[in-house]
C-alpha cells in the first residue's frame, strides 16, 4: 500500500470562536491513497496532525447528510468526494457557504431545522385511519410522483448553493420546499391548504430567482429547484384564484 501513497495538500478554513476574530486558512500535508475521500483526508488531519479540527460526519456513505463542505468552492458531501480527483493540486475545504460558522467546518444549522419544522412535514390525513383498516393504497405511479422529493437527506448543500438564501436567510429555501412539496403531492395527504400559507408568504418561493444551482449540487437528485419553481405556479394560482372563489383560496 505504501508504494502508491502520495501526499496531497489540504487547505482548511479554520475558525475558533474563542480565539479568532475571523476564519483563516491552514494547509496540511496528508498522505492519501486512491480510494480516500476528502472526509478521510480531514479525519487524518484530526487523528494525526491537529486534534482540534472540528467537522461533522457519521455514515461515510452519503446518506446521513452530515458531512457537507465547500470543496474547492463547490458544496459537496466530503464522504463521496475523492482526493484522487484533485491531486496533484491542492484541495480547498471550507464550511458550507451561507451558514454561520460555529467552528472550523461546522456550521450552525438551527435555522434550517426551524424551517423543516415549519413546513408541517408529516401526513395530515383527510380523515384519520385506524391500523385495523390497513395500509393506504398507493400505486407505484403515485409513489413515483413524490418519491424523488422524499429522498432529501437534509445535507443542506442546496442552501450552500443558493445565493438567494445567502442574501436572505429568511427564505424557506430549496430542501424545505422539496419536503413541503413531497407531502403536498402525497396521495395520503390533505394538508396542502395549510402548507400553502408558507409557500405564499414573504419567506416563501418568490425569493427564488431560478438560479438552479441547488439542483445541480444535490447529491440525491431531489431537484429542489423544481419543487420551488413548481410552487411559484401553485402560489400564483392561489393568489389570483382567491379573487375568483368565494372562500378565497388557501387561508
Amino acid at each position, binding site marked *: 500500500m505504501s508504494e502508491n501513497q502520495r501526499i496531497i495538500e489540504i487547505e482548511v478554513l479554520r475558525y475558533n470562536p474563542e480565539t479568532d476574530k475571523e476564519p483563516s486558512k491552514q494547509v496540511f500535508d496528508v498522505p492519501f491513497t486512491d480510494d480516500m475521500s476528502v472526509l478521510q483526508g480531514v479525519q487524518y488531519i484530526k487523528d494525526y496532525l491537529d486534534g482540534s479540527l472540528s467537522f461533522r460526519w457519521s455514515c461515510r456513505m452519503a446518506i446521513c447528510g452530515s458531512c457537507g463542505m465547500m470543496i474547492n468552492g463547490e458544496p459537496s458531501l466530503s464522504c463521496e468526494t475523492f482526493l484522487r480527483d484533485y491531486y496533484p493540486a491542492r484541495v480547498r475545504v471550507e464550511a458550507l457557504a451561507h451558514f454561520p460558522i460555529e467552528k472550523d467546518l461546522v456550521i450552525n444549522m438551527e435555522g434550517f431545522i426551524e424551517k423543516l*419544522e415549519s413546513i408541517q412535514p408529516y401526513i395530515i390525513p383527510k380523515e384519520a385511519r385506524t391500523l385495523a383498516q390497513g395500509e393506504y393504497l398507493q400505486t407505484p405511479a403515485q409513489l413515483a410522483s413524490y418519491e424523488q422529493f422524499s429522498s432529501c437527506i437534509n445535507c443542506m448543500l442546496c442552501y450552500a448553493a443558493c*445565493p438567494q438564501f445567502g*442574501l436572505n436567510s429568511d427564505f424557506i429555501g430549496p430542501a424545505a420546499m422539496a419536503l413541503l412539496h413531497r407531502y403536498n403531492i402525497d396521495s395520503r395527504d390533505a394538508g396542502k391548504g395549510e402548507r400553502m*400559507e408558507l409557500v405564499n408568504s*414573504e*419567506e416563501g418561493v418568490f425569493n427564488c430567482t431560478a438560479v438552479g444551482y441547488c439542483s445541480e449540487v444535490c447529491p440525491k437528485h431531489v431537484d429542489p429547484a423544481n419543487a420551488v419553481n413548481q410552487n411559484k405556479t401553485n402560489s400564483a394560482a392561489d393568489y389570483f384564484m382567491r379573487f375568483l372563489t368565494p372562500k378565497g383560496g388557501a387561508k
Partner: protein
Amino acid sequence: MKKTLKRSNAPIFWALFGAGGMLSALLGPMLVFITGLAIPLGMLLPVDTMSYAKMLAFAQNIVGKGFIFAIISLFLWHAAHRIFHSLHDIGIHAGIVAKLICYGGALAATLVTAYTLLAIGF
C-alpha cells in the same frame, strides 16, 4: 411557535415576468432581427416592410395593437423584474426605491404604450 406569515405580492410581478420572459424567448430573437437588422440593412425582407402606411395600418388594427402592446409592455415587465432582482443580487438592496424605479418604469412605459396605441386610433 408559528410565525405570522405575510402573504407576498410577488405573484403579480412574477406572472408578468414569466409572460414577458416566455414571449421574448419565443419571438425575441426574430423581432430583433427583423426590426433592428433586416429592415435597416435591407436584408431578406422587402424594403417597404415597415413603411409608414404599413405600420400605421398594423397599429390601427386591433390584433396589431394587441401585439405591439404585449411585446413592449411584457418585455419591459420581464426586464424590470430581472433587473430589480439583479440589483439585490449584487448587493444593492435599495428596497422600495429600486422597486419603484424598476416596476414603476415598467408601469409608466406600459401606460405610455397604451396611450399611444389609443392615440393612433382605429
